[in-house]
């Protein structure tokens, strides 16, 4: 099945100079199957109209397409369609939560928002392996409210060090935000353990699911998280679309950050009443074509099966890790058993940018830099790494082409 579905991704036929393309940068963004690309043409040529307004037939079709997306996502990650709010991207989704809490802490949102109230004496807990998108908004929230920011450290093996979990997450902790899967190390974090501790102290749980939802079966209801965020473009969908998932009771109490049209019930010259989620967080014209395309992507993933995708990528990860171990001078960051196909490494004597350039000359696309996780890189004593990341369309040849090119890097730069 996986050999066949590779043909669904036209971009994989691209040649880079004289080499075929081996795309190992899906951790940054995934490629799109033809059916997702076609949805844009189909939507704009047959269904395009403003959603949630207008009584004409096209408007009804556009609204149906828009709302069908929520249902598809709810089927994928659990919950009901009302729990799925569209955002510009996952970063915005996390900011909507952090800034909503900030507004609640400054008196917005009335009585029901007071459950989010944060001040000095309270703490926010994150981890040392967060993507900047799930770190910077919490730093800002701490600065704004006077709350303390704490973090769970990372071990040499690239896992969360939970030995002091009970003192780091304590009775003062109001928000516990962490990533499901590290975008650098590939480590899958023990969400159950972390949620259990959050429940003991009554903290809200915010899950960054950007690297988990595209690669493995995930159910936010089963995980019992309060809020979760992920992006469409890493899961075969288009850019410009993210998802904020939340428990309805919490979503409906959280003060919205973006306000304006389409999210209100009554507006007077003095004040306004807001709708419940999801519209509450969807002010202004929404990315309807993107939602339609993402619906196609979600259905595609569901048809292949996230469990099968996870197994396929696990096999590729083995090939990558075993192959890298044979090449002198390469150090992989982290060694967690429970992981996805994201492998970041340091090449002794050669800067990541130069590694990436060489691999590119051989048709291998990887990410170089700090991958928006500077503190994690600092933790491992490096400023930048090279990262290979797999997806369902990758095959063993991609991995082997990568390994062959990687073995040539140090000789090319004259490093022994």
């Amino acid at each position, binding site marked *: 099945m996986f050999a066949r579905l590779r043909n669904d991704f036209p971009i994989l036929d691209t040649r880079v*100079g004289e080499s075929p393309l081996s795309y190992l940068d899906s951790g940054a963004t995934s490629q799109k199957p033809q059916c997702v690309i076609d949805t844009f043409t189909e939507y704009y040529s047959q269904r395009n109209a403003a959603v949630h307004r207008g009584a004409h037939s096209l408007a009804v079709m556009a609204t149906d397409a828009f709302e069908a997306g929520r249902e598809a996502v709810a089927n994928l990650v659990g919950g009901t369609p009302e729990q799925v709010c569209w955002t510009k991207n996952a970063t915005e989704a996390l900011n909507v939560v952090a800034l909503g809490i900030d507004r609640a802490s400054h008196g917005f949102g009335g009585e029901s928002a007071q459950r989010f109230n944060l001040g000095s004496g309270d703490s926010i807990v994150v981890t040392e392996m967060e993507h900047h998108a799930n770190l910077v908004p919490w730093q800002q929230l701490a600065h704004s409210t006077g709350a303390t920011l704490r973090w769970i450290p990372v071990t040499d093996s690239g896992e969360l060090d939970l030995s002091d979990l009970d003192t780091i997450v304590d009775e003062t902790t109001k928000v516990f935000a962490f990533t499901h899967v590290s975008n650098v190390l590939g480590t899958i974090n023990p969400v159950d353990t972390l949620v259990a501790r959050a429940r003991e102290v009554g903290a809200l749980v915010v899950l960054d699911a950007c690297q988990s939802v595209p690669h493995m079966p995930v159910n936010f209801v089963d995980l019992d998280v309060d809020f979760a965020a992920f992006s469409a473009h890493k899961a075969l969908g288009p850019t410009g679309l993210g998802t904020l998932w939340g428990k309805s009771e919490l979503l409906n109490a959280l003060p919205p950050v973006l306000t304006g049209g389409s999210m209100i019930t009554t507006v007077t010259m003095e004040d306004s009443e807001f709708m419940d989620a999801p519209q509450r967080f969807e002010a202004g014209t929404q990315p309807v074509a993107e939602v339609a395309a993402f619906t196609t992507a979600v259905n595609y993933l569901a048809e292949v099966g996230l469990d099968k995708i996870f197994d396929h990528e696990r096999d590729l990860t083995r090939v990558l890790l075993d192959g890298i171990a044979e090449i002198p001078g390469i150090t992989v960051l982290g060694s967690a058993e429970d992981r996805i196909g994201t492998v970041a490494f340091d090449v002794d004597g050669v800067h*990541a*940018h*130069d590694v990436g*350039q060489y691999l590119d000359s051989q048709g291998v696309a990887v990410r170089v*830099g700090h991958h928006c996780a500077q503190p994690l*890189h600092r933790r491992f004593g490096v*400023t930048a790494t090279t990262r290979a990341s797999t997806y369902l369309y990758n095959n063993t040849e991609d991995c082997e082409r990568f390994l062959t090119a990687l073995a040539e890097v140090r000789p090319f*730069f004259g490093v022994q």
Partner: protein
Amino acid sequence: MSTQMQQLYQQVILDHSRERIGNADLLGDMAAGPHGSSHQINPTCGDEIELETELGSDGSIVVRWTGDGCSISMASASVLSELAEENTLEGMLDVEAKFHELMHSRGTMAGDEEILGDAAAFSGVSKFPARIKCALLSWVAFKDALNQAQTSLKE
């Protein structure tokens, strides 16, 4: 090996990235002459440079720097330091302008070796849009540090 890669990583660039000229601790206020320093960072890859210029009363100019980054950024800082040794302040201003022009030429210019010395080897880099900022990192720091040194001269 593709010719593009050979154009990018010319031997002179690889040599400078290993044997780095001017790579020395900064003197700060211990510097004898008018001086300035600048810290530049490339936020996309984390490449970093701290560069200091010191002006001599005879119109000479000294560059010292510490940094961490890719071969292109480190070689560029080394070449810059070498050119500073060979040029007066006035000459360096011309070199800086010419190097800037070369890096934005998208590979259409050869680079005048008479003026640019080893920096002419960076003409191949200008074909790689993602790497131009690597080559320019130390030069941006140089311009900033030089401005400060000149300001302190006037004071």
